[in-house]
């Protein structure tokens, strides 16, 4: 048993930490989140040059062969700085789907360009009625000659407005909620019939609702076997959940440090407010929640690296449920302990609260994952 990082892993962590240190002061982050793009293409280039965009891909597809643990290390550090670049959308969702399900040609066409920072992706899976159920797909794709015709609307597609290609789940057969009959397609952002409405999300990022109206894609853009995408989607999403857990751990740690420091410096009634026992106990509860979350996040990364089986699936749901609960508690209490300061956009703590709030909900909230955990038992 070893929860410690190897030498290479420490180097990776140091390099991401340094990037965050240099580029993600709260002021920098706030400014960046207010630009139209919502992130920095220069940062993205840097991330490519440092080799991070290829870390999560195996050497067979041209990546650097890192596993879930390497992803966890990167995401935890990025979570500390609330990094805005579309690493999850492009690498962990879009890129992994291509790597898992794609033909040699599709992989060759997309992955190297993605690793170099040229191609950005988004994964359009959710729909207004689907909530967190990945199999609730009503968007349809019907075969017409050498093409598929896509119809339907995808909801809250993170980075859907800035992606070069959108990976979309659509039903080629079966009834609503069936796992069987779901397919994946690669759609170019400028395909005719695509209506992309971008908006800001509460966590300072960008998302889009995307309407497909008779969007015609060549059959060559089918990703994987027709109707067989559900298990691949589940696997890639579970790995992404593991990564988001790590991001939450980083964000919780930073949030607690900022709050702890505030308790030591902010004075009321002639003493630092950290001298009040009620606040001490609150801070202790926040610390304990963050530590437990770190354990769960490390555990889930290691399990995902062993094998993707039911044990790993249960671990993902357990981690998401526990971390979701902790993320809400720490996010909300960090604001509370800051008093009025916590309510301002200018000060960083509210941004941690908002990102932690969305992390609890992304890919299934605490209730959803408690139920999934129980159904896998």
């Amino acid at each position, binding site marked *: 048993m070893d929860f410690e990082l190897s030498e290479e892993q420490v180097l990776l962590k140091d390099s991401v930490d340094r990037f965050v240190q240099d580029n993600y002061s709260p002021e920098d982050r706030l400014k960046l989140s207010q630009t139209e793009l919502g992130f920095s293409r220069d940062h993205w280039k840097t991330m490519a040059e440092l080799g991070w965009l290829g870390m999560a891909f195996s050497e067979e597809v041209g990546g650097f062969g890192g596993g879930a643990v390497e992803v966890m290390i990167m995401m935890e550090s990025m979570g500390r700085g609330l990094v805005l670049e579309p690493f999850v959308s492009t690498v962990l969702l879009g890129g992994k789907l291509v790597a898992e399900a794609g033909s040699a040609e599709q992989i060759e066409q997309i992955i190297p360009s993605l690793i170099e920072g040229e191609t950005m992706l988004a994964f359009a899976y*959710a729909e207004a009625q689907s909530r967190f159920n990945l199999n609730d797909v009503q968007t349809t794709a019907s075969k017409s000659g050498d093409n598929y015709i896509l119809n339907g609307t995808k909801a809250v597609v993170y980075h859907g407005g800035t992606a070069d290609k959108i990976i979309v789940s659509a039903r080629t057969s079966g009834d609503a909620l069936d796992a069987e009959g779901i397919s994946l397609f690669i759609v170019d952002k400028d395909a005719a019939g695509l209506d992309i409405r971008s*908006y800001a999300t509460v*966590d300072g990022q960008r998302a889009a609702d995307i309407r497909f109206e008779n969007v015609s894609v060549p059959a060559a853009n089918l990703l994987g076997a027709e109707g067989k995408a559900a298990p691949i989607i589940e696997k890639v999403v579970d790995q992404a959940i593991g990564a988001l857990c790590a991001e939450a751990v980083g964000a919780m740690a930073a949030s607690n440090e900022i709050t702890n420091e505030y308790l030591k410096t902010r004075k009321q009634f002639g003493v630092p407010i950290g001298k009040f026992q009620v606040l001490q106990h609150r801070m202790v509860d926040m610390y304990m929640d963050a530590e437990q979350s770190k354990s769960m996040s490390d555990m889930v990364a290691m399990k995902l690296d062993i094998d993707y089986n039911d044990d790993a699936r249960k671990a993902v749901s357990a981690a998401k449920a526990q971390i979701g609960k902790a993320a809400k508690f720490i996010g909300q209490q960090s604001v509370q302990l800051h008093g009025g300061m916590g309510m301002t956009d200018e000060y960083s703590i509210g941004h941690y609260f908002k990102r932690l709030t969305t992390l609890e909900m992304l890919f299934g909230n605490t209730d959803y994952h408690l139920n999934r955990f129980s159904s896998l038992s």
Partner: protein
Amino acid sequence: MDLSFTDEELAFQSEVREFLEKNLPSDVKERYRRGVHFTKEGQVRWQKILNEKGWMAPNWPKEYGGPGWTATQKYIFAQEMGRASAPNPMPFGVSMVGPVIYTFGTDEQKNYYLPRILNSEDWWCQGYSEPGSGSDLASLKTRADRDGDDYIVNGQKIWTSHAQHADMIFCLVRTDQNAKAQEGISFLLIDMKTPGITVRPIIGLDKEHTLNEVFFDDVRVPIKNRIGEENKGWTYAKFLLGNERTSIARVAQSKLRCEHLREIANTEKVNGGLLNEDRDFMRKLTQIEVDLMALEYTELRMLSKIEKGETLTAEPSLLKIKGTEIQQRLTELLVESLGMYGAAYDSLEVREGRNDLNFAPDYAHGPMAEHLYLKAASIYGGSNEIQRNIISKMVLGL
């Protein structure tokens, strides 16, 4: 003991209900129902309608323009306002400084300010908090030094809600630098147009402009604008804070939110069915409704004490803690009810009260804004930690 209303009270209830149905402007109602910030114009328009009916200030004595209602009538009115999605008048004039003026002010102050508050001619804001003094209000540093018939005010206030709209600010200032913390404070009414006052916006984490900093740089305030005696301001401030805490349970408002949640649950889909079939979700909503009922009957018990002429001690703190906790749990659940659309929050869309881009169901615009904004509810008006201190000291003797 008797829970039921009398015939007169029931008739009053119908009268209020009917009035609100006929007179509440639909745009004002819609913003409030959604949880979107009000506009000043809409708020003032609505307040003028209430005032014309004589219902602007339910808590004021009749001689100053109150309707002369019993505590039960006031309760019924509050419930009906909530039921109709009718926003309450801005509290700073009518609930905060108004009662201070008619209780401690001079005749001149009463005659001038009270009618202006009732008729929404002055928009008031509250100058209590300072950067160094939040919950420890008595440590405030803004000073007022005498110069002839004026005070010269210097210092800074913070977290001043809606100061950007305000005509007047009521302020706690230090008039004796050598006295102990709670002594040497005076209560001043200051015209926001006085030279030397600067208002700087603080953008909130909901990306909205509600809060402000207010700076005073050699601001001349006539001594006749002081409430009561010099250096006795703390007494008036405490009186005001007591009033603030009694109106903070917001049962009617929370009932409205519960209803809104049920509507969403009847519409929002999950696993091929509706959210109202999701047991986890409905259990949370039901738990809040039960807690809200406990709060409501606690408030009613206190009301009955007031009717009997008893004085409350720390009961308002209980109402504040439980009321704000319920408000926060409700907005959290509202966000949860939206699923992924909870994240789709664009303040610009919400601020304008429109949804040009036509993304997300219409009811999705509002809950996140309110969830973020109401994080302040457990902070303002004396944080909930401070309220618990009050109960432990005053009730439990700890």
